[in-house]
């Protein structure tokens, strides 16, 4: 078996999601190569080559790949994928964008968002917002798979010494154009990589009150998340959303504040190691999954908690 792992990066840094995809590749077994497609990606290629278990890093460095436009990336991946038994990447908004195109161009199914590898052709994946886990088996010649960011512990960042080779396939479909990006700048860790997350829901009442979470987040080195209700109410931007239609997270500690616990939210965080719920409604469903529940007014509890940390 030979597996092509497509790297997730921002042209300067290899994302943790790639190391999770590598862990899934190891679970499948066989040789694993990493494809780094981007522009000015020497640094990313070296980081990829340092991952243990990688055979070769293939680098497609071309301005057409700078912004991961799916028309260009998918054409590249399809060419590089020839001869591999598996194409694996992270189930991020980027992976979700181009990987189905890759599968369709190869004429095979894609298996999205896997949480476990049972064998080379059999995988587990959540369906119905995680209310059921399906075990699925692909009969395609090439298995095209995206891996949930919480499925495996990431492989180590160092220890390997793969060879790096250039891949000079230039594919520019010319029918799409990158205009710009507004990436939220934050000193805090990314939601999907954070060890501790503190999230606010509708109970926060407005966006200004999220400052109450910030003090605690600063002390714990935590990322700040939100429920869909808080996003829909306009308290905070959507990239903070945790849940079925937002980010799937599994930190060591997840603190849900003023979040009732709709199944769509639980779908995004119930694999966290320790869950804390702070809510004034003692019947809130969030308490059914919380390891530690505190029935309290969050406007009193949060400042108290910050002072104790």
């Amino acid at each position, binding site marked *: 078996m030979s597996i092509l792992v497509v790297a997730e990066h921002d042209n300067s840094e290899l994302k943790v999601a790639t190391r999770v995809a590598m862990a899934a590749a190891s679970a499948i077994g066989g040789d694993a190569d990493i494809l780094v497609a981007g522009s000015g990606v020497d640094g990313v290629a070296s980081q990829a080559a340092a991952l243990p278990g990688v055979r070769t890093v293939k680098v497609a460095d071309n301005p057409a790949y700078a912004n991961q436009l799916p028309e260009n990336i998918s054409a590249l991946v399809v060419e590089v994928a020839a001869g591999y038994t598996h194409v694996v990447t992270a189930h991020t908004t980027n992976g979700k964008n181009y990987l189905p195109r890759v599968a369709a161009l190869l004429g095979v199914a894609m298996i*999205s968002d896997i949480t476990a590898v049972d064998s080379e052709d059999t995988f587990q994946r959540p369906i119905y917002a995680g209310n059921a886990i*399906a075990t699925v088996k692909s009969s395609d010649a090439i298995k095209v798979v995206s891996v949930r960011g919480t499925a495996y512990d990431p492989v180590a960042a160092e220890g390997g010494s793969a060879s790096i080779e250039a891949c000079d396939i230039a594919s520019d479909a010319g029918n799409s154009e990158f205009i710009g990006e507004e990436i939220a700048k934050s000193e805090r860790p990314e939601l999907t990589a954070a060890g501790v997350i503190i999230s606010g829901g509708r109970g926060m009442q407005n966006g200004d009150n999220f400052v109450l979470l910030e003090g605690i987040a600063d002390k714990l080195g935590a990322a700040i998340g939100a429920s869909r209700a808080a996003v829909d109410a306009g308290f905070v931007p959507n990239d903070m959303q945790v849940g079925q239609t937002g980010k799937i997270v599994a930190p060591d500690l997840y603190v849900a504040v003023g979040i009732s616990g709709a199944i769509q939210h639980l779908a995004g965080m119930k694999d966290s190691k320790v869950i*804390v719920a702070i809510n004034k409604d003692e019947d809130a469903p969030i308490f059914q999954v919380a*390891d530690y529940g505190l029935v309290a007014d969050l406007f009193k509890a949060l400042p108290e908690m910050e002072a104790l940390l």
Partner: protein
Amino acid sequence: MKVLVPVKRVVDYNVKVRVKPDNTGVDLSNVKMSVNPFCEIAIEEAVRLKEAGVASEVVAVAVGPSACQEQLRTCLALGADRAVLIETDEEVQPLGIARALQALQAKENADLAIFGKQSIDGDNSQTGQMFAALTGMPQATFASELVIEDGKAQVVREIDGGLQTVKVDLPAVVTTDLRLNEPRYASLPNIMKAKKKPLDVTTPAELGVDVSPTVATLKVEPPSERAAGIKVETVEELVDKLKNEAKVIA
């Protein structure tokens, strides 16, 4: 400009699904079925484009069993001009659906196809992208804002770190995210009118496509349950437990 809106019949958003005791799937007997919420947003966006004079015709299409006509009628009541059902009783998966839609597009020549970004049953997030690949169209997925101008679609996309803006040449595929719009409710007069709008039925065989799946579902199980923990009385107790019992904070 013609807009094609593929929609999916799924279990209603509010239904808590249960896995069947024999682990062959989830129990869908006697549960409410609806238009997938993201597909509803797609219909709304297409109808708004028509109301703004940008689109001339909105065609809703579904691939699946005869019962999908119910959801297509809903789309007609929401403002679609006509509907097409590509009828099959076989299980259809994203690639098969994309192939059937590709064959339909060869006849319809739509300038824009708006899909929901994912269905709330399979949670795949594949069909729109696959259709785009098969038809050679560019795509703008997870859209929170769509503007059609000079033969192009400018789209603000919701990505992991924030927002991204791309411009794609028409014909193009757009998939909807939650904040693109808030779908309207169908009014009673419109529901009545929808009954008279055209709804054509064809089949994958008539379109000359093979929709047979290549992924077999071996079993479906309930997720491992998380047991409820304990209630603490004070913030002090909570912090103490986190430090000394769970040991997740220093």
